[in-house]
C-alpha cells in the first residue's frame, strides 16, 4: 500500500565523505542531547498546535476551491461532458454487468443470469483460459461466496475489480511503455505515480464522489488511482530490463523502434507485465473497502458496515470472502499466463480432448445459464448450506470470550505501551518547539543518509509546515515510529525463528500470507474489540499489517545466509545464540535493513485507517475531512502532510539502507 512495490531504479550510492562511525556516534549523541535539553527548557512552546475546528488560510482556500468546483459542476463543459461522460460510461458498463450477473435487473426480481449460470460460466471460462485446476478453484470459491452469504457482494466486487483492471491495462500499458522508452517521461511521471500511491485515498474520496457521483464510477476511479501505478511501474521495468544483448542483436538487423517493441520488448517482457497486471488486481481488491465508503459496490460494504456496528463476526466472514477472491484471482491469472506460454511452446496443447471438454462444458454452461434464467432456485443463491452465520457467530463468541477473559491483560498492555512509550515519545516529538524538532529531524536525516535525504527532508518539512498541521504530523510520526519499532522487533524474533526452523516456516508462512491479503479494515474490528479506540489500537492494526512482509523478508534473509559459513561457524563450536548474533544476523543485514524499511512504509500506509480507530493525528483529520464539509480543506491538507511525511521517511530509510545495508 504505498511506494514499496515499485522496482527501485536508481540505487542511491553512499555519499563520499560520510562521517566515520565514531564521529557519527558523537554526533548522534550530541543531537539527542540538544533535543532533550531543548525539550526540557522549551516544552510546550511553539508547538504549532491547531484546535479541532480551527482552520488555517490554506485549509479555507482548499475549501474554497472545492466549493468552486462544486458550484461549477452543473455549468462547466468539462465537468458535465468530460467527467460526466467518463462517469456515465463506467456506470453503464458496471450496471450492465451487475444486472447481468449480480443485481436484480429491474423489473426482474433477480439478475439476468442466476447464480447457477454464473458459476457454470466462470468455471468454464477458467477452464478455457487456464486449466481444470483453476476451474475447480473458481468453482469452489464461487460456491463459498454464496454459502458465506455474500453472493451478490462478491460478484459485484468481481465486476468492479474487472472493470478497474481493464481500464488500468488500457491506460497503464501504453504509459509503462512510454516510460520505458523516454527518460523524460520517467522523470515527469515518477512523482505523479509516487503521489498516487502515497496520498491516502480518504483525502480525495469526497471530491471524487463530487465529480464521479456516488457509486460504481467513483469506486472504479478510486481503485484506478491506487492500482494503476504498480502496473505502469512494473511494465516499464519489464521493458527496460529486456536483455540488452537481444535488443542490440535485433537493432543490428535493422529493426525500427516499433518492430523492436512489438517483436522483442513486449514479448520478452510479457511475463513481467503479467506480474504487473496481477499486482494491479491485488491493489484493486485492497481498495474495495475504502471505495465502499462512497457506496462502491462489493464486499467492502459489509466490511465497512461491520466496522460501523462493531460486528466482528460479519467483518471476519466478509474479510474471508475477500481473501478467497484474492486467492482465486491470483492463482487463476497466474495459471492462465502459464498456460498461454505452454500452449505457445507445444502448439495445440491438450489437443482434441481439451476441445471436446471445452465444447461439452460450454454446452452444459449454456444449459445451466438457461436454467438459471428460468427457475428461481437457480437464480437466487440458496440460503442453505449457510456457512456464514455459524462462522460469524463462532468468531463473535470467541472474540467476546477473549475480550472478557483478556480484558485485564489487554488493558494493562495498552496502558503499559501508552505510558511507557507512546506518551513520552509523543511529548518529545510534539511538545518540542517546531524549529528545534525540524532541526533534529534534519540532523538525523543527515547522520543516517547524508546530504541528499537531508535536502529532501527539508522540502518535505516545509510542505508540512505549509499545511499548518505540524503538531498533528508529529503525533502521527510518534505512532508510526512506535509501530515500526514493534514491527521490527517482532519480525526479528519470528523471522529468525522461521529462518532457522523449517517446520516453523511451513506453519507460519500461510498465516502471514493470509494476513497480507486480508483488507486492513478487517483487523480493525478485533483490534477495536480488544483495545477499544486508542492510539495503541491504531498501532496494533498497523503492526498487524506491517509484520508479515517484514517477517518474511528477515526469514528469507536468514535462510539465504551461505550454508558454508554456517557450517564453518558450527565447526568452530558456536552456540545457537552466537550463531544468530555473530553469523546469521550480520550476514543477513541487507535483509534486515530492507525489512525495516518496508515495515516502516507499510505502517505509514495505515495512518489513515488507524485514524478510524483512535489513531489521532493526521489520520483522524483525513477521516474527519472526508466526513465533514467544513473540514474538507483540513483533511486534504492532512493528506498532503501524510504524503510529505511518507516521502521523507521513505527517502531517509532508502539512503540509510543503501549505506548500512551492504553487508
Amino acid at each position, binding site marked *: 500500500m504505498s511506494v514499496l512495490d515499485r522496482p527501485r531504479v536508481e540505487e542511491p550510492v553512499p555519499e563520499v565523505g560520510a562521517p566515520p562511525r565514531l564521529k557519527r556516534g558523537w554526533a548522534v549523541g550530541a543531537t539527542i542531547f540538544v533535543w532533550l535539553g531543548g525539550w526540557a527548557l522549551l516544552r510546550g512552546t511553539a508547538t504549532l498546535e491547531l484546535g479541532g475546528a480551527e482552520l488555517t488560510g490554506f485549509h479555507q482556500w482548499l475549501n474554497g476551491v472545492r466549493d468552486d468546483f462544486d458550484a461549477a459542476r452543473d455549468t462547466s463543459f468539462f465537468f458535465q461532458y468530460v467527467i460526466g461522460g467518463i462517469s456515465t460510461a463506467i456506470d453503464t458498463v458496471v450496471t450492465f454487468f451487475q444486472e447481468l450477473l449480480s443485481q436484480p435487473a429491474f423489473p426482474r426480481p433477480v439478475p439476468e443470469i442466476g447464480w447457477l449460470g454464473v458459476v457454470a460460466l466462470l468455471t468454464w471460462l477458467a477452464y478455457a483460459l487456464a486449466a481444470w485446476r483453476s476451474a475447480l478453484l473458481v468453482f469452489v470459491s464461487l460456491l463459498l461466496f454464496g454459502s458465506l452469504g455474500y453472493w451478490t457482494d462478491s460478484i459485484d466486487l468481481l465486476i468492479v475489480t474487472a472493470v478497474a483492471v481493464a481500464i488500468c491495462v488500457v491506460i497503464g500499458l501504453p504509459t509503462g511503455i512510454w516510460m520505458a522508452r523516454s527518460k523524460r517521461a520517467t522523470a515527469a511521471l515518477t512523482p505523479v505515480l509516487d503521489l498516487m500511491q502515497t496520498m491516502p485515498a480518504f483525502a480525495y474520496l469526497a471530491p471524487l464522489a463530487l465529480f464521479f457521483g456516488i457509486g460504481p464510477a467513483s469506486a472504479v476511479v478510486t481503485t484506478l488511482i491506487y492500482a494503476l501505478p504498480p502496473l505502469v511501474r512494473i511494465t516499464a521495468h519489464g521493458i527496460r530490463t529486456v536483455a540488452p*544483448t*537481444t535488443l*542490440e542483436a*535485433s537493432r*543490428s*538487423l535493422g529493426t525500427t523502434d516499433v518492430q523492436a517493441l512489438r517483436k522483442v520488448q513486449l514479448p520478452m517482457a*510479457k511475463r513481467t507485465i503479467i506480474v504487473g497486471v496481477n499486482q494491479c488486481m491485488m491493489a484493486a481488491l485492497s481498495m474495495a473497502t475504502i471505495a465502499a465508503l462512497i457506496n462502491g459496490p462489493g464486499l467492502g460494504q459489509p466490511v465497512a458496515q461491520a466496522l460501523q456496528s462493531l460486528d466482528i463476526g460479519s467483518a471476519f466472514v466478509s474479510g474471508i470472502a475477500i481473501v478467497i477472491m484474492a486467492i482465486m484471482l491470483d492463482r487463476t491469472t497466474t495459471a492462465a499466463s502459464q498456460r498461454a506460454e505452454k500452449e505457445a511452446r507445444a502448439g495445440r496443447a491438450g489437443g482434441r480432448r481439451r476441445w471436446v471438454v471445452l465444447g461439452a462444458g460450454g454446452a452444459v454452461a449454456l444449459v445451466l445459464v438457461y436454467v438459471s434464467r428460468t427457475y428461481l432456485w437457480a437464480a437466487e443463491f440458496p440460503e442453505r448450506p449457510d456457512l456464514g452465520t455459524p462462522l460469524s457467530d463462532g468468531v463473535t463468541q470467541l472474540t467476546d470470550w477473549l475480550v472478557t477473559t483478556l480484558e485485564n491483560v489487554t488493558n494493562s498492555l495498552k496502558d503499559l505501551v501508552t505510558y511507557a512509550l507512546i506518551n513520552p515519545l509523543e511529548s518529545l516529538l510534539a511538545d518540542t518547539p517546531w524549529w528545534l524538532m525540524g532541526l533534529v529531524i534534519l540532523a538525523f536525516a543527515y547522520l543516517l543518509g547524508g546530504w541528499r535525504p537531508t535536502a529532501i527532508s527539508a522540502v518535505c518539512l516545509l510542505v508540512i509546515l505549509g499545511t499548518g498541521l505540524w503538531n498533528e504530523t508529529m503525533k502521527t510520526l510518534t505512532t508510526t515510529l512506535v509501530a515500526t519499532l514493534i514491527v521490527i522487533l517482532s519480525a526479528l524474533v519470528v523471522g529468525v525463528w522461521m529462518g532457522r526452523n523449517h517446520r516453523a516456516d511451513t506453519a507460519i508462512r500461510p498465516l502471514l500470507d493470509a494476513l497480507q491479503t486480508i483488507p486492513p479494515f478487517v483487523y480493525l474490528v478485533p483490534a477495536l474489540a480488544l483495545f477499544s479506540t486508542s492510539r495503541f489500537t491504531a498501532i496494533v492494526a498497523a503492526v498487524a499489517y506491517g509484520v508479515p512482509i517484514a517477517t518474511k523478508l528477515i526469514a528469507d534473509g536468514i535462510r539465504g545466509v551461505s550454508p558454508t559459513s554456517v557450517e564453518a561457524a558450527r565447526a568452530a563450536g558456536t552456540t545457537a545464540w552466537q550463531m544468530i548474533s555473530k553469523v546469521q544476523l550480520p550476514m543477513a543485514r541487507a535483509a534486515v535493513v530492507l525489512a525495516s524499511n518496508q515495515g516502516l512504509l507499510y505502517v505509514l500506509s495505515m495512518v489513515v485507517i488507524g485514524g478510524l480507530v483512535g489513531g489521532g493525528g493526521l489520520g483522524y483529520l483525513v477521516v474527519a475531512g472526508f466526513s465533514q464539509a467544513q473540514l474538507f480543506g483540513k483533511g486534504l491538507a492532512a493528506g498532503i502532510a501524510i504524503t510529505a511525511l511518507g516521502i521523507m521517511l521513505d527517502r531517509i530509510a532508502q539512503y540509510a539502507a543503501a549505506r548500512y545495508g551492504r553487508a
Partner: protein
Amino acid sequence: MTATTISPVKTTESALSVRHLWKIFGTKADKIIGSPDADLSRQELQAKTGCVMAVKDVSFDVAPGEVFVVMGLSGSGKSTLVRLLTRLIEPTAGQVIMGGSEITAASESELRELRRHHVAMVFQHFGLLPHRKVIDNIAYGLEVRGEGKTERRQRAQEMVDLVGLEGYEESYPDQLSGGMQQRVGLARALAVDPDVLMFDEPFSALDPLIRRDMQNEVIRLHEEVGKTMVFITHDLSEALKLGDRILIMRDGEIVQIGTPDEVVAVPADDYVRDFVSEVPRSHVLTLRWVVREPRPGEPVDGPVMQAGVIVKDAARAVLEAEQPVRVYDGDRFLGVVDDEDILRVVVAEEDEQPEPEPQP
C-alpha cells in the same frame, strides 16, 4: 603504432575502411579530441574529466573476403570498436566507410537499410529471441525487412542446413546447447546475405571443444560463402587460427596490425611480446621468418620451398635434406634454411612448450 605492417590492401578496394575513429564515453566527450587531454592515459583522463576513453584514433582497412581479427583483453575497447562500425554505439569522431558508403554520415533510415542488407553481426551472448522458434529466429532479419513468409521460411531453411541445425527448426532457443544457440545466431546473420559479417567474441561463452568446432565451422563457412569478416576475440590462438590479419588493441589504441606470423615474429612492443610468448612459434612462423643469406661457401643446390610454408610443416623436409633448403617467394630467391635454423625455432619453443616436437 607499428611500421612492420606489410599491407596487402589498398584503400580503394576496401570492403571496410575506418579512419581516425574515436569513442569517449562521458559528457562533453567531443571537446577532448584535439585537446591536450586526448594524450592522457585512460586512467588520468578518467580521473581528470570523468570521461572514459574507449576507442582512440583507430584507422584500418579490411579487404573484401578478408577475415580481420581484432584482439585485445577485456576493457581494451574491442567490443566498442565493432559496435562503432555499424553505429550500434555512436562514434565520437571519425569515419567508417563500408562498401563505398559512409556509415558515419548515414541517416537513421539509411543506417537501417544498411543493417538490413549489408552487414550482420553475431553476438557473444547470442541475443536470440527466447519466445521464437529456431526457424523464426533465423528468419527474424528477413522478417523485419519485410520479406514474405514463404520466401523467408525457405531462406531460413537453407541457413538451417548450412549451419547444421537440421531437426531443430521447431525448437526454442533455451532447449538448445550454447554451441547450437550460436549456430542459430550465425544462421540469423547469414540469412540476410550481408556483405560483411561481424563477430563479437562469438565463442567465448562456449566450452573449449565446442569452441574448436565452431571455429572450424567459421573457417568452412568462410571458404563456402567467402564473406568479409570482422572477428573480435580475446583469445590469441583463435585470432591466429582464423585471422588473415590481426589488430591488437590495448586501452582503446591500436598496438599492432599484421598477419599472424608478423605478430608472432616481430611483436610491436613488450605487451604483444608477452601475449605471443606462449604461442608455439613453429606453428605460426613461415620460412620467410627464418630464411637467411647463404653463408659463403654454403651449397645452394638444396631442395626448393616457398616462403609461405609454416616452419612446422617444413621441418621434416629441411631436416631430411642433405643440403640447406632454398627458399623462394614465387620466383624470387630469398635465401636458405638449414637444420640449425629450424631447430632454433623449435628448440626455443621447447623451453616453454612441454610437449616435445617430433624428432626425426
